[in-house]
């Protein structure tokens, strides 16, 4: 079971890196969106500093969303999904393995690149640590929630839009607590309470969404 889990995790990472995959696309989208912000808003440092955390979080959410359409679709189209369901990974473990691989190739690069864009958007220095921590704790939830959207949208033509409609409302609490974590640090109060809320949300998402996504996949197969 552990070996199978690791095999799927590794294969998905291999595929993401090899096929010029989703990982690079998500990071490029994140970078492109954030580059547009100062061009649209104007280069005034005070204004940029105020919106920096929010813009980075919104861009991260949209970049994660963008990478989700193909999460199960490729495996569904070529028949791999049948094999995954017949393997010891059954339902929930396969969703977890795929989410973990997707986060590592599409989510983590965004987290790592975030300080660069924080610098560009003039985020005050005390905001960097909470920004990184909150992105580390919050972005996995984007992929776990997205797995449910991707599973429900399987077999729907132009499923990407459907995924966005299902998933974006569920992103809201994570966005709020993520940005609140950074805002707290900027206003000089402790950022830990917001951070713990965010972390709790991600842990709840880890339990609930793979369960729901596995059920949706099973329903799609039958």
């Amino acid at each position, binding site marked *: 079971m552990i070996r199978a889990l690791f095999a799927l995790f590794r294969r998905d990472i*291999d595929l993401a890196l090899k096929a010029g995959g989703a990982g690079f696309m998500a990071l490029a989208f994140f970078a492109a969106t954030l580059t547009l912000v100062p061009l649209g808003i104007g280069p005034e440092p005070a204004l940029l500093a105020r919106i920096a955390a929010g813009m980075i979080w919104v861009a991260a959410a949209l970049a994660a969303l963008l990478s989700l359409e193909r999460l199960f679709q490729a495996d569904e189209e070529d*028949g791999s999904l049948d094999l995954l369901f017949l393997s010891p990974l*059954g339902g929930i473990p396969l969703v977890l393995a795929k989410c973990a691989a997707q986060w590592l190739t599409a989510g983590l690069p965004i987290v790592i690149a975030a300080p660069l864009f924080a610098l560009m958007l003039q985020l005050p220095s005390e905001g960097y640590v909470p920004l990184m921590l909150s992105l580390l704790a919050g972005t996995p939830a984007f992929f776990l929630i997205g797995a449910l959207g991707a599973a429900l949208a399987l077999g729907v033509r132009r499923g990407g839009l459907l995924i966005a409609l299902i998933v974006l409302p569920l992103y809201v609490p994570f966005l709020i607590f993520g940005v609140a974590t950074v805002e707290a640090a900027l206003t000089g109060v402790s950022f830990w309470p917001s951070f713990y809320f965010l972390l709790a949300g991600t842990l709840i998402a880890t339990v609930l969404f793979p369960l729901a996504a596995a059920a949706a996949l099973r329903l799609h197969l039958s």
Partner: protein
Amino acid sequence: MIEPQDRPARGFDLAGLAIRRGERLLLRGVVLTLEPGQALTLIGPNGIGKTSLLRVLAGLLPRAAGSLRLDGLDPREEPEAYAARLLYVGHRDGVKPALTVAENLRFWIRLFGAETKGEARALAAFGLARQADLPAAYLSAGQRRRLALTRLAAIPRPVWLLDEPAAGLDADGRGCLADAIAAHRAQSGLVVMASHGELAIPDSRLYRVGESPKAPA
């Protein structure tokens, strides 16, 4: 994980099995028993429900009614133990074009918890030894099918469910498959295959899908 030898092999036991696709009752009253070492060929026109029957046997589709047991296991009650006894090769090959031939097979071997050392032998058994390091994107349709079939040689499971396994295969490929099936049955393996006559398994039983009692209109 449950090893195949944990329970005595008794084969398939189907009684009054019915399959529903959407609103339509596709098949009903399917009665079958199959013992280890036997082979069954499902025949019948397109759309009659051969693939659906195979997918129900694999535990991928739920049955609408009736009972289904493989070595005494019900796929509803013990899905993991049930799935651990079989290999399913469907229409779609499940081959990832970005990975090499050997990487594709190695992934399946690890996924299904088999021994990696069977890899070279399995590739050779289906005539893919020379293509092992070639990206699967360069394979022809027939070669992709051969690659999907290497699972049978690399992952030891008592029950094989094959959905038109010879589709797209050349004479040599059909020969490889026939040899693999013969070897599997010699070790009291069980084979259920849907076919349009591209491949004939010697002394296989035939089952005409859809000739059991018709669903009332």
